[in-house]
């Protein structure tokens, strides 16, 4: 297949346009995807940045107010070895002290599967006082789940 030079120009222009579109969109829409220990380690540089944090809902300290649709809880690191297969590999180098962060999600209904001990992905921003102001809380709901043997 030969393509005449002027066709080559047309094809390259379109390819370049698509490439640029991808490049610029990545820049403006990307967000850090971090584990709880990684957030702890990078706390200083994350202020105001859109982040997604994968962690586990810490039992206790969970408050749900259905009138204002506000969910407050604490998110803790997912243990390294997880029998169920946690979706996120923690970066071992950053597995510092098991820190946890307070999450405040306002204006969103509580997800069905939300419960203490569940793995969640929290989308939002880290505020100055170290709280995560969440715009979304997603529970990892495996579409093909593996039931626990002890049942």
């Amino acid at each position, binding site marked *: *297949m*030969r*393509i*005449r030079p*002027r*066709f080559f120009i*047309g*094809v390259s222009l*379109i*390819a370049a346009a*698509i490439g640029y*579109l*991808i490049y610029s*969109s*990545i820049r*403006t*829409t*990307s*967000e*850090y*995807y*971090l584990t709880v220990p*990684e957030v702890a380690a990078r706390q200083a540089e994350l202020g105001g940045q859109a982040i*997604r944090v*994968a962690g586990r809902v810490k039992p206790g300290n969970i408050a*749900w107010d*259905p*009138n204002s*649709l506000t969910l407050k809880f604490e998110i803790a690191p997912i243990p390294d070895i997880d029998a169920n*297969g946690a*979706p*996120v590999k923690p*970066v071992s180098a950053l597995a510092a002290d098991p820190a946890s962060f307070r999450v405040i999600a306002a*204006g*969103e*209904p*509580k997800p*069905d*599967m939300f419960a203490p001990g569940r793995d969640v*992905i929290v*989308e939002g921003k880290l505020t100055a006082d170290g709280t995560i102001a969440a715009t979304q809380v*997603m529970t*990892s*709901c*495996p*579409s*093909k*789940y*593996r*039931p626990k043997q002890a*049942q």
Partner: protein
Amino acid sequence: MPQLGNLALAIALILAVYSIVANIYGARRNLPDFVVSARHALWAMCAMVTIAVVVLWSALLRSDFSLEYVAAYSSTTLPTVYKITSLWGGQQGSLLFWTWLLSIFTSIAAFQNRRRNPDIAPYALAVLAGVAIFFLLMLNFVTRPFELLATVPAEGSDLNPLLQNYWMAIHPPSLYTGYVSATVPFAFGAAALITGKLDDGWIRSTRRWAIFSWFFLTLGNMFGARWAYEVLGWGGYWAWDPVENAAFMPWLVMTAYLHSVMIQERKDMLKVWNLALIGLAFGLTLFGTFITRSGVISSVHSFTQSGLGPYFLSFLIVVTLAYTSLLIFRSKELRSPAEFESYLSREAAFLFNNLMLVGIAFAVFWGTIFPVLSEAVRGVKITVGPPFFNRVNGPLALGLVFLMGIGPLIAWRRTTASNLVRSFAAPVAIGVATGIVAAAAGLRQWYVLTAFSLAAFVLGTVIVEFRRGMNARRHMVSEPRAKALVNLVAKNNRRYGGYIIHIGTIVAFVGIVGSSFFRTEVKKSVHAGESFTIGSYTLRFQGLDESDTPHLESATALVEVLRPDGREITTMSPAKLFYKRPQQPATKVAIRSTPFSDLYVVLAGIDDSGQTATFEVFLTPLVFWLWAGGLMMVLGTVVVMWPNVRERAAIATALSRSSTDARELADATPGGN
């Protein structure tokens, strides 16, 4: 019984290996007996895999919990239909199901080519057997469906409640059928490369397979979107999740392929491109399975992490390297004497349509693997969500729609200015008028205005095409309009079926644009008797209706929907469910759909007293048209695939004369433009 399943899978593996050897040996040494026995081996392989499937199905239906798979994905109380669907509810079963489809399609391809394509068919069947070997190796050694449990539990742990709905019966099989049937054209493309028979024989022989695959990929994606919309309760139908992307990318590439093969058939151009596209489509089906099975990319509905990832990745790499080497090896022979002559030609429009489709596929691919790439390069995982995909694909979709209007009306090779004016004056006028009307109606977003204008433009071009065809018919044979229209489509089903698919795509596109830009959402906690509004609707919460069965507990909210004048339209009943085994809550969405907009009510929560309920309500305009457009795409594809009676008859007559004539006739493209 489980031993029977294991035995059948082992024999199937041996048969597949034998089939490769016999096919290649027979074809190289010109020993037809070996090729025949290789074909029989493939049929026997299909029979063996079928036995394995029957064994697993019977174990599921008999609730034989001595099998680990049955204990993990079924239970005695599971309704029969879900026991059947449990075959693809878990990993081992879905791989077995995949292998089963592959062996069936391979057998059909072997049957179809028992006299046709003696040069390339043995190699194509060898490639199909090679793919089957990979899956059979997995089933025999890595993820065995007939693994027994040491202690037999009294009860199974049931199929995930999220999978217990009728979509489970139709969505995965459609998608798998689409995925797996793409292997057939791929195998014939690979065979063309291996043998050096690089004319378009492989394309013609597998055209129906490619359309068949595209048909089921379309269905699979549509069903998946509809499933998400009806069941998941977030008001949308597409979240650009890796699992969805994995199904979307092969569809895009197959769409590109179906268009670009027309250029090869007509103009003998783009040979390398077509071979590359079909290779890419097949590679993406493997890639999809890899990302969903490996846990490399986290998805909101992440699958169980399993050891399958490395195997799929290795197989993907081997296939990619082998196929690319073949392409490079044959690159000189693949040069086409023909050239693109003008930007204003149908082949140019098709070329750019291909660029757009592959560009979208690439953007989706890039966005999907970006977290992995960024972690490898920068040491930190960076994700891109729906905003990325929408920003990139929005403009590309507009370009694609524009080309969809241009392509069918523009002439091959080159077009004159007067020709352009004659063809496009009316459609352009329709498009511009639509834009003006939309702007006058108060729409201001540039994207929406452009999208609606372009959509109207494309519909205009299709109408012009249908009119032209009808007038031509009525000129030759005097027929009433309706009859002319029916005959036009019936006699040129490939072409006009294609236009029906285009109309469906445009209708779906309008639905997507409308639902993406104009969706409104209200979240509200209310006491019984209170009401709230969304759009022009008033919703009054009447109260909760609770029930408790051994299977599940449920709370149903009764919501009266009122018009502004206070007239009641309907009562909707969204519910919250709580499955008892495994203990898991779920949401039942209530949807009231009209062509104008969908009212989508989710009972997001209830407080302990049972007096207050939290609702999440979405008003989504035009989403109806997404599903309507999908239905039209499906109908159009049926028209395209419909066996052309005259074509059949001609082939049959020729068959009785000589097989060579028949092959030529079968290869000819009646109804093509």
